[in-house]
């Protein structure tokens, strides 16, 4: 059902012709709305305009206008020298992009999904992440790897994995995951301006979602700091930490919890590496309870790292064990009912939050 709503939103935003800021619909004089797709497109556009060293590379980013239309209009605007359609050879084109970054130009590489990044992972880790260290600062690698990450809808096991934990475990990388359009614009701009390799994990199902954006966010100089999380909803009873699509689910869970008298604080992690340990710990020291939420496989994941951080830094403040909501520990099934069971739902987050409050979960 949710899929149909998303499909309609997708179609609506696809009908819009020019990229960037003109696709705003103002619902009121105060808040403008922007889809994630437009947020990303406008960020790419502005950064390419500001710095001629920035260029795009990936499958279908040019003439096809982007597999998910994120790069729509950019080939027309910047030409084939700066928007490059690659063959389906991730290892090759990722290596080429990293080599170009060694020389000092600034590639933004699109993976059609991060599942395909595994074909190129040697270049992301060994050629990009570690080079500044191995060369003792001689060779920095100003590259961004971006694309949809995690579960989509009905795409099966090989196309649904979340790579946040894999990349975030590697020193030398910066790993970001936007949730809202403000995040998408601010973090992508920051990523492109950053001199280090950045893995930028988007979410296909969020591309068509609209979020309010202020004038500040729409300004071409807008940028968000890397390594800082955001408190999306202030609360005092339990901290719910999530990233990407799960932030939306956490916010819905907070609404449900409010009806039961539980005031949840929702943290949008934004940055998996560097992880904003100080904000998460400060929040848990206030609430004494923590639920981590991710769509990814549970073992050795982002939630596990956050839990370890809390145990190390704020153990005495905990009033309940840390709860971890994650994707099911199985490859993603296709059948809709099984798929639904394989990813977290709002009720899972609510239940876990209630457990931390020692409330009955029926």
């Amino acid at each position, binding site marked *: 059902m949710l899929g149909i709503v998303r499909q309609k939103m997708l179609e609506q935003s696809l009908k819009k012709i020019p990229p960037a800021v003109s696709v705003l619909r103002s619902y009121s004089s105060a808040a403008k709305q922007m889809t994630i797709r437009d947020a990303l497109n406008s960020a790419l556009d502005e950064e390419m305009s500001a710095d001629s060293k920035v260029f795009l590379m990936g499958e279908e980013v040019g003439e096809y206008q982007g597999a998910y239309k994120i790069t729509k209009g950019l080939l027309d605007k910047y030409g084939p020298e700066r928007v490059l359609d690659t063959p389906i050879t991730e290892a*090759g084109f990722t290596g080429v992009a990293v080599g170009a970054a060694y020389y000092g130009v600034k590639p933004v590489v699109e993976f059609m999904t991060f599942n395909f990044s595994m074909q190129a992972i040697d270049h992301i880790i060994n050629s990009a992440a570690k080079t500044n260290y191995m060369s*003792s600062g001689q060779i920095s690698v100003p590259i961004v790897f971006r694309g949809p990450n995690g579960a989509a809808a009905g795409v099966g096991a090989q196309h649904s994995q979340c790579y946040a934990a894999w990349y975030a475990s590697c020193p030398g990388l910066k790993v970001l995951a936007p949730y809202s359009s403000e995040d998408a614009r601010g973090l992508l701009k920051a990523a492109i301006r950053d001199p280090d390799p950045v893995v930028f994990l988007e979410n296909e199902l969020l591309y068509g979602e609209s979020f309010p954006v202020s004038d500040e966010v729409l300004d071409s100089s807008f940028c968000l700091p890397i390594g800082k999380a955001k408190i999306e909803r202030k609360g005092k009873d339990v901290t719910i930490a999530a990233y990407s699509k799960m932030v939306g689910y956490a916010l819905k869970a907070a609404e449900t919890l409010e009806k039961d008298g539980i005031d949840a604080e929702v943290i949008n992690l934004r940055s998996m590496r560097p992880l904003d340990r100080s904000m998460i710990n400060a929040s848990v020291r206030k609430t004494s309870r923590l639920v981590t939420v991710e769509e990814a496989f549970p073992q050795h994941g982002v939630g596990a790292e956050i839990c370890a951080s809390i145990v190390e830094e704020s153990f005495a403040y905990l009033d309940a064990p840390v709860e971890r909501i994650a994707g099911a520990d199985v490859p993603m099934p296709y059948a809709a009912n099984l798929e639904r069971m394989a990813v977290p739902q709002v009720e899972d987050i609510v239940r876990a939050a209630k457990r931390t409050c020692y409330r009955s979960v029926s």
Partner: protein
Amino acid sequence: MALSHLAASASRSSSLLKPLSSALSLRRSISGDNSPLTVETSVPFTSHQCEAPSRSVETNPKELLTFFRDMALMRRMEIAADSLYKAKLIRGFCHLYDGQEAVAVGMEAAITKKDCIITAYRDHCTFVSRGGTLLEVFAELMGRQAGCSKGKGGSMHFYKKDSNFYGGHGIVGAQVPLGCGLAFAQKYSKDETVTFALYGDGAANQGQLFEALNISALWDLPAILVCENNHYGMGTAEWRAAKSPAYYKRGDYVPGLKVDGMDALAVKQACKFAKEHALKNGPIILEMDTYRYHGHSMSDPGSTYRTRDEISGVRQERDPIERIRKLILSHDLATEKELKDVEKEVRKEVDDAIAQAKESPMPEPSELFTNVYAKGLGVESFGADRKEVRATLP
């Protein structure tokens, strides 16, 4: 080998001056001059999808003497590294280049420091030919601060960005797409320069090489792929690893040239040809027929998969330094004694550099946490026991 002058004794012209020759020759300092000299390569080039360059190479005494000195330096450096490794002053991996020196010096003679070179882990001599010092080499091998990567890289991770040497890579084959990326950036920046991406006969079978070659040909990148074919990928002979050992032909629609990699002048000619080609027509493959005297690395004796006769045979017949020595002597550009003196000087330089490198301290403990990022954002990082060792990344 072509001898275009009488093979009279090298001391013919200086026999009358024999008593003064030592003083005079020191003053002459055998740096030679730039008067042109034409030498034929050992064998003609074999080409694929292109017309081979002439086997007559233009050179001059200065260049030949520089070749001799530089190769003698590299040879001595690698042999010294062998001893240091056995003395446990060098740890981990150490892949030596002795035998292959002609590729490094010949290539450098054909290009400028604005052209890029990227290679795999057998990188010590390439680093030196790009302007790296002996001190930087030995200090890096021993993990000291004076090393080119301040001791944090090691043998396989030498870099010299200011002369466009991009390493130094440990993952077999990865350097080829990276090199094509350098070429992409050169073209993007309109620099009119080229990149030489070196790889071995073992790496020649890597899929990513063909992916990068396809992209380079499609986008007309000024990329020159140089296969340093020393006929063995670690312990595996080329005939056991590759169905087709004609590496210069493996580019299919990409032209290629097969070159005697033990002949520095042939290497120079081929690289000059390749640079001109790449700037106009996109990628080209050079296969350098070369040989390494050492095993794959210091943990490989190199004689379990090759016969000692083969190794000594190549040393007798094809040694790159001996080739240049014979050329210099037959053209009367220096005496045997002068060349031996060069070898002595070079040996002393190497010994001095090693002594200096040994004096260089190991990196400060705080260096564990530097250069993780170019822009650290004040983020925290941890040692093994994070309650004991934490640092803020600069």
